[in-house]
């Protein structure tokens, strides 16, 4: 579907657009930092993490049509893996490991992708033979179970440090440059959040690239085929079980990578960051943006990261002005809006706010041909 959109564009326009986008992305932290303050650069860093998560979930939900409601668990797996492998924490439980493990990022991230992917396969395997709803429930349960373990695996061996979480995690460092402090480049001081911005941007672009390439391959087509009609997909010779597991593993591995980056960025992880509500938020990004449409999902990621921040700053004062007090705390308002968005989008705009061109055309009214519902028969 990307090809269809791509073909219509003039190559020169496309090149110019790409260059412009590159410059904008490169300058973004400076513009935002100067205009809105450094706190907003941090928000943008988070937006990038969420975009990675949303793109990962998009593979599972958007392409393959498998509803994963515990996706944040894979983020947690990546984050805790980083926390354990790059902090003094393990030295507490295993004195022989003093002063803790301090693995480099290039070793942890691929491992995080692998481990999260393995979790994805383990979780998906028992349910994939069954109907999709079972997968939804099992993943929902898994998200909570992982949290129970994070909360309780401080005994008998202190692995996770329980509800307090793991602190003193090493900041990400590459080639001797630590992202944890301001870096001086030719006299320009680049604050830590700027450095992370560039790192996350790079990772996000990589994830986008991988997503696009996968979508536009026999594997991506097989995912969509399964989403559209699993039985027909089988009859086309697709080993649906393996291809679904692959979707699960790929999606989970994106989550694992984003989790590792998150742990290094925050230098702190605790179970609180990985609640069901986080899973729902990522799902919202995918659904609201446009399931299966990469630009839409990116848009959803940005929108839903910025919106809560705007609410945090704006909702309180607005309510005070209107009603004299804060009726709905911003956190609730955010969740309420997410819940409503899920309902309303499914009812009225099932393809999302930014559907792919081919689906948009269809919404614009393709009444010219009979809708005798290919594949619409359901049993």
């Amino acid at each position, binding site marked *: 579907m990307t090809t269809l959109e791509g073909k219509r564009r003039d190559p020169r326009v496309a090149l110019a657009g790409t260059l412009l986008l590159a410059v904008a992305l490169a300058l973004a932290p400076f513009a935002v930092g100067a205009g809105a303050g450094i706190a907003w650069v941090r928000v943008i860093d988070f937006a990038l993490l969420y975009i990675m998560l949303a793109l990962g979930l998009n593979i599972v939900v958007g392409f393959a049509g498998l509803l994963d409601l515990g996706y944040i668990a894979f983020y947690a797996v990546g984050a805790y893996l980083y926390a354990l492998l790059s902090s003094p924490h393990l030295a507490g439980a295993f004195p022989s490991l003093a002063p803790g493990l301090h693995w480099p990022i290039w070793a942890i991230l691929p491992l995080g992708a692998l481990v999260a992917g393995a979790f994805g396969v383990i979780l998906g395997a028992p349910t994939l033979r069954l109907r999709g709803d079972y997968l939804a429930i099992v993943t929902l349960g898994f998200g909570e179970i992982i949290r129970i373990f994070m909360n309780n695996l401080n005994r008998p061996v202190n692995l996770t440090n329980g509800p307090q979480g793991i602190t003193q995690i090493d900041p990400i460092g590459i080639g001797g440059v630590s992202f944890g402090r301001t870096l001086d480049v030719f006299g320009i001081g680049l604050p830590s959040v700027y450095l992370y911005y560039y790192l996350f941007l790079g990772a996000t672009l990589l994830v986008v690239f991988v997503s696009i390439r996968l979508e536009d391959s026999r*594997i991506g087509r097989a995912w969509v085929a399964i989403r559209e*009609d699993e039985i027909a997909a*089988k*009859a086309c*010779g*697709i080993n649906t079980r393996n291809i679904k597991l692959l979707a699960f593993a790929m999606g989970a591995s994106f989550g694992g990578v984003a989790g590792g980056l998150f742990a290094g960025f925050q230098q702190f992880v605790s179970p609180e960051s990985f609640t069901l509500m986080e899973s729902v938020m990522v799902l919202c990004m995918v659904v609201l943006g446009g399931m299966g449409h990469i630009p839409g999902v990116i848009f959803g990621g940005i929108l839903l990261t910025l919106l809560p921040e705007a609410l945090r700053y704006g909702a309180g004062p607005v309510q005070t002005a209107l009603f004299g007090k804060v009726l709905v705390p911003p956190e609730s308002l955010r969740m309420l809006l997410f819940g409503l968005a899920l309902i309303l989008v499914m009812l009225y705009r099932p393809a999302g706010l930014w559907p792919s061109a081919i689906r948009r055309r269809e919404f614009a009214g393709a009444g010219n041909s009979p809708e005798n*519902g290919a594949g619409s028969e359901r049993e």
Partner: protein
Amino acid sequence: MAREASVSEVLLDARGIAKSFGGVQALRDVSLTIGRGEIYGLIGPNGAGKTTFFNVLTGLYSADSGEVQFDGARLDIGLPHLVTRQGIARTFQNIRLFANMSALENVMVGRHLRSHASVIGAVLRNRATRREEADIVDRAHRLLRYVGVDARANDLARHLSYGDQRRLEIARALATEPKLLALDEPAAGMNATETASLRQLVESIRADGVTVLLIEHDVKLVMGLCDRVAVLDYGEKIAEDVPDRVQRDPKVVEAYLGGALA
């Protein structure tokens, strides 16, 4: 007997297939042999078990008993993707296209099992992958032209007309490079012109070396097109012969309540 083709010519040999759903015995001890290059018809009243036979043959249902030899090997019934790999492709009685994919993409999906790019290949898009993709697109276009829906290549499958959807499904099945193409009531819902061109299509598919197994309600079509015909009734094969003789078989006439075949 004449219909017992010599071993080298037998493509598919189903022996003693039985299948029941709860109390319903949908197939009982059905055996049939399809020769290479034949157009073989499977007819019978509604609910006779024709679709169930397809579903067992193509691995969507597992049979209660029986086995199938296909092209000299035992068919892995029970695993649809392996059946397709072994060379049986099918269409569905109620069309099953990938509704939100374009016609071209539908056919491209049919190439899945004849292509190899892995995740790494897909991401790096190395030379082998690029060549493979180009080949997939090229073949898909040719197949669309072959069945006559190339003009709608970039339209969503759900927006195609009924007849085009049926043809698209055939193109998708052909994309898997089958030795045997199984069509489940391909003419259902088609008008006379569409049926006539479908008939030509089936004949040219056979001419290109693909054996065809055809379930059809349109008796005229079956009788005109098929080399041999088997009749199912209440899950049992009650006749198997050349169309002329099947048509005059009293058991068959009775199964159709005398007259439908006349």
